[in-house]
């Protein structure tokens, strides 16, 4: 062999040896002396709350020295890609986070551990620590298949400085669509690049405004859509008509990343429909802003985003998975950590724990609105082919917003397509 071939062969051997050595090294760390390694997969910790989660894990491991919790994260956009693949390959994480919309799919597929069974023998467990409605949301076919972990709601943010400058009274909890519309029209000043309102035209806003207008998305038996109705037209028109009048068009937004967040933060947006997860980012905005419960029409209805923790049906450590899930969703340290860092809200029933949220020194002042918004909530419709339904609805609504279809036509088309998905 000549030198080049020799060198290449040596390099090749080294590379392969290193690859294999690395592989086996990781495999061994998993099985330490008697210690149980429990994997937890999450989308809501990264990038902002990794340290917060770590502190919860540390507290848990201190109480349960035998359990080693390994946190794995993925960005939300890819989270379910990874989760599905790992379930397909029978390497599902022992415990993982699920949002309400996806919960049913995994529950139906039999991928989730029945937690009631896993809880047997845990005498400390009291279902009463959870807000009852929250707990019920993750009960499927009479089985508790996940524990509620956190929730957040959508409220109306408003720029108080802009309202004051225009001599308008600030929004209140009594506002209706008409009030919002009137104020938005007055506050919009396109020459200055100031917009009165911002509410995305998409599925999640539609199912909620539909409820506000007194309509329902699906029939009671869930077998047919019912949004192609006067209430549906009213709700869709409410969303679509804002575009271009009091709200920038798709073309004006031009795909700028986080356009609405930046518009509000730069003081050029008077009202903004968004979630309480924006509180932390807006805390240092250089003007006075606050929040109220979203205005309603026939009735009030607020969107709630609900996340839960589930255990894999195939986990080898059901008892440990239960202990961790319970700790992560109901322990005192979890509740205080979430509240202190505005990391969504803990789904606990104890109002005194939640009271801490109201005492926070940072904006917004009217944190009470977050709890008020929970008094009448709108849960999203959930079907087996969830994502296709969401995509279809958003696509048809944007057709209407862009003026390619009438609102009525868009709803009729969406209803026909979604009925097909239900069949």
């Amino acid at each position, binding site marked *: 062999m000549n030198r080049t071939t020799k060198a290449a062969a040596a390099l090749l051997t080294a590379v392969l040896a290193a690859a294999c050595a690395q592989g086996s090294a990781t495999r061994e760390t998993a099985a330490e002396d008697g210690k149980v390694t429990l994997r937890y997969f999450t989308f809501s910790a990264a990038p902002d709350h990794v340290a917060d989660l770590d502190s919860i894990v540390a507290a848990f491991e201190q109480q349960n020295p035998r359990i080693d919790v390994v946190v794995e994260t993925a960005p939300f956009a890819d989270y379910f890609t990874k989760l599905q693949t790992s*379930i397909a390959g029978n390497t599902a994480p022992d415990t993982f986070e699920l949002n309400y919309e996806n919960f049913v799919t995994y529950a139906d597929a039999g991928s989730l551990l029945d937690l009631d069974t896993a809880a047997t023998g845990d005498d400390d467990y009291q279902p009463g620590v959870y807000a009852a409605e929250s707990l019920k949301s993750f009960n499927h076919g009479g089985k508790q298949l996940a524990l509620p972990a956190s929730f957040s709601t959508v409220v109306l943010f408003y720029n108080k400085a802009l309202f004051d400058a225009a001599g308008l009274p600030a929004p209140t909890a009594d506002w209706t669509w008409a009030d919002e519309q009137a104020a938005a029209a007055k506050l919009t000043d396109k020459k200055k690049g100031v917009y009165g309102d911002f509410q995305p035209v998409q599925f999640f806003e539609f199912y909620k405004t539909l409820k506000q207008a007194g309509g329902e998305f699906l029939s009671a038996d869930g077998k047919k859509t019912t949004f192609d109705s006067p209430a549906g037209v009213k709700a869709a028109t409410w969303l679509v008509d804002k575009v271009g009048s009091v709200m*920038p068009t798709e073309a004006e937004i*031009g*795909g*700028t990343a986080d356009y609405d967040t930046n518009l509000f933060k730069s003081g050029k947006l008077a009202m903004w429909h968004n979630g309480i997860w924006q509180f932390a980012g807006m805390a240092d905005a250089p003007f006075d802003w606050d929040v109220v419960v979203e205005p309603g029409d026939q009735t009030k209805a607020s969107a709630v985003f609900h996340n839960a923790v589930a255990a894999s049906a195939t986990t080898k450590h059901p008892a440990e998975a239960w202990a961790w899930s319970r700790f992560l969703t109901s322990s005192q340290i979890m509740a205080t950590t979430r509240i202190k860092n505005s990391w969504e809200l803990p789904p606990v029933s104890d109002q005194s724990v939640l009271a801490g949220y109201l005492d926070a020194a940072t904006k917004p002042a009217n944190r009470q609105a977050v709890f008020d918004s929970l008094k009448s909530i709108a849960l999203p419709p959930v079907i087996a082919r969830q994502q296709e339904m969401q995509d279809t609805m958003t696509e048809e609504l*944007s057709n209407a917003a862009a003026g390619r279809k009438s609102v009525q036509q868009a709803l009729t088309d969406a209803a026909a397509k979604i009925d097909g998905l239900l069949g």
Partner: protein
Amino acid sequence: MTRTKASIRLRYAGTVALFLLPSAIPLALFTLVPMAGSLWTSLHEWNLITPMRWVGLDNYVELLGEERTRAAFGHTLYFIAGYLPLVYAGGFGLALLLNRAMRGRNVLRAIYFLPVVSSWVVVALMWKWLLNPASGIVNQLLALVGLDGPGWWTDPDWAMPSIILASAWKDLGFVMVILLAGLQAIPQEYRDAAKVDGATGFKSFRHITFPLLSPATFFVVVISLINGFQVFDQVHVMTGGGPAGASQVVVEQVYDLTFRYGRAGAASALSWLLFVVILLVTLVQIRAQRRWVNYG
């Protein structure tokens, strides 16, 4: 005599195997086996988290009858028809220009190569900003010359042209580098000889450069077509297939079906339909190459 012949033949077969096996084994294990797996999947209904259910050819039948499948192939062909000529002509021109002696040539080559090494996430963000219908620099420049710029990627009619433009921009450097490598391998004697014969400029290009470059050109065209049919990254990050499905290409559809809609079987079937199309196109090119590709 026959024994030695046989042993020579055996040694030759050994040599061929020695050269081929290092690539054939990994390709078989890590590409062909998964390909077979996806073929198997295409005959099932499967959402990845529940067990597979055999459905035979149903996925294929269903896909062939769907309007969405035709639309996805239509959008993909549209992309190729716009992208390939742009990127080839541009890349060829650049390679010729930057092959000549010129001050700062290496720096210029590196600059043209920048987009190739950048990630699509960054490139897409930037193009969305450049092509922003309201305040983007492109429409502002068009306004200067009195033109009313289109809605670009926010408008269903302009979404695909926007993607084509961004893709051609990003891949120019790729074509340039491959053709440059080809140009540099052309022995100078050939061109000197041509000069002696009085062939200069276009004539030299047509009779010397182009034929000698034809293997590299063949490579660029075949690979660009294979990649063009599988266009995904730029669509995924620029428009996600929208607006209103106007840029939904085949692989974007495959991705949605697998990972968002829980229809991995249909996704595999769609991939195999795509495979057949690409294979036919490539075979036609391999057939046709005898007429125009000049091998040493």
